[in-house]
């Protein structure tokens, strides 16, 4: 399916879901709007705009069609996915393994493995950055950072 239409369908579903949720919350009355009133209006609006985009996608706009059909052409999109996965893993283990281990692992993996930087940079830059961040947040601003199961 055309990328433009697929995206508009996504937004339509989001708008429709918001409308459905707003009915549960209660629309109230015009003189006493309920919790779902604005959500209902905004949901209808998003769904309507999505329909317009969907219809417009049938109009011939060669330049826009070409741009959208080549969304992932000539770029290393796999790298974006890898970074996303790395961030997700970082978040999942951040509170368990703690600030130091997770931060160093994230930076080292990106710099050494993904970007192919040399060992010296991949170790020293993360080490100094993590130390500086720890000093700023923990020591200066007294904001707690997760110690993790190892206690540091």
């Amino acid at each position: 399916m055309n990328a433009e239409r697929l995206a508009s369908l996504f937004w339509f579903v989001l708008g429709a879901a918001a409308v459905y949720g707003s009915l549960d919350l209660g629309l109230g009355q015009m003189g006493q709007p309920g919790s779902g009133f604005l959500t209902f209006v905004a949901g209808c609006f998003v769904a309507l705009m999505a329909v317009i985009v969907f219809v417009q996608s049938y109009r011939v706009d060669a330049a826009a069609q070409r741009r959208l059909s080549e969304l992932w052409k000539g770029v290393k999109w796999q790298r974006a996915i890898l970074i996303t996965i790395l961030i997700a893993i970082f978040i999942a283990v951040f509170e368990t393994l703690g600030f130091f281990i997770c931060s160093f692992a994230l930076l080292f993996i990106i710099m050494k493995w993904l970007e192919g930087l040399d060992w010296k940079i991949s170790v020293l830059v993360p080490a100094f950055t993590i130390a500086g961040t720890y000093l700023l947040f923990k020591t200066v601003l007294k904001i707690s950072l997760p110690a993790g199961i190892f206690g540091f």
Partner: protein
Amino acid sequence: MDLFDNILTGLSVAFQWHNLLFCFVGCFIGTLIGVLPGLGPVGAMSILLPITFGISPVTAIIMLSGIYYGAQYGGSTTSILVGIPGEAASVVTTLDGHQMALQGRAGPALGISAFASFIAGTIGVLGLMLLAPPLASLALRFGPPEYFALMIMGLIILTYLAQKSMVKSLMMAGVGVLVGVVGLDTMTGLPRFTFGIPDLFDGIGIAPLAMGLFGVSEILLNVEQTIKQGVVVDRVKNLLPNLADWKASYKPILRGSLSGFLLGILPGGGAVLASFISYGTEKRLSKTPERFGHGAIEGVAAPEAANNSAAQAAFIPLLTLGVPANAVMGILLGALMIHGITPGPMMIEKNPELFWGTVTSMYLGNIMLLVLNLPLIGLWVKLLRVQYAVLFPLILFIALIGAYVINSSEVDLYLMLLFGVIGYLMRKFEYEPAPLVLAFVLSPILEDSLRQSLIISGGSMSIFVTRPIAAGFLFLAAVLLVSAVLPSVRQKRSKLVAQADENN
């Protein structure tokens, strides 16, 4: 108190050593993130928001403001020397600024950019000083219908001026409202779309949303490509523009300052738009428009002036009406609320030290930025030589830690990642994130004012058209919407979009 008393109050606040220090820190960080492509002022301010928890509200706002207008200065350095805009408002500066650098005139390009920024910043601060108090008095007449109408107008203006499809931008504004309603309903206490997650009861934070949509998505887009940061000069010489440069630039600087200021005041306007419009104006007014895009100094002076005065003017709707004009102002609004201050018409009267202290510090900040950007240019050139492969992991790491420390919440990190992926896909599919963020920020005020208006009127929508100020705002919004559909205007918009595409 008259203006001079107010300025004296402001100076006494701005010259306190800790305020001077944080003003400098803000300007320095602003310049730094302006110079570095990939992290705009929205992301940087969100990350640094927790730092402001431990300091006074005046000092916090002085520092955060410094980051914002500092980024407008710094963005031009990367535009000129590398040909990549360091910041969205510097996209236009790239066209002639980088050409000047290629022709061996990087010094005058950086010099005129800094001086234009300084002059415009000063004009912007003066305008802010003169206009904000009377506007605040006028705003006292605003009730819920006027606020609602003003916000609708702001959102329509932003979507009207969107570079890509207006329908998509309107849709994003709707999505922003939907994201904004997540959390407990302030009137009934009912949880909305929280899915039983306690972290969502207070709603989605501006920091994970903005950092995801602007910061993480930018990184994901950049890692797909091989970024070559080719700095064209080793050492920048002759930073002071000569007489001919000044002769060609002084009128564009003044025009850019004025148009930037007017566009900056508009909710939904702002620095990016101001720079584009002032560039277009100068090209149209020029006797030799063919020089534009090939190193015309006016093409650097005008947009740099415009984006800086717009940055200062954007404070007016926030400080006088409590309505943020753009995402950056939304973060400032959040910062003020955290410190227990509600911006609005009464703020100048109730917190004169905060208002006048912040405004006066902006003038001092402009002087600091002139020093940071001219004598320290060598430092920024060195920074630009750092590989993106080293920079982006660090930016990502700081964003992650910044998002976490605000509430010590893992959920905020997941939200940031989610909005990062959504932002990445949005940019791919040509949906602009700015209307989403602005609508998100405005959503609580929008909802409260809509519900209060309907309660006042007993459920009649006529309240929005029978009150003149509200009717005026809505009329303007309707005119913009209708005109966008007119074939002639649509053609012009399409042409502008095509031009912007070429420029990018």
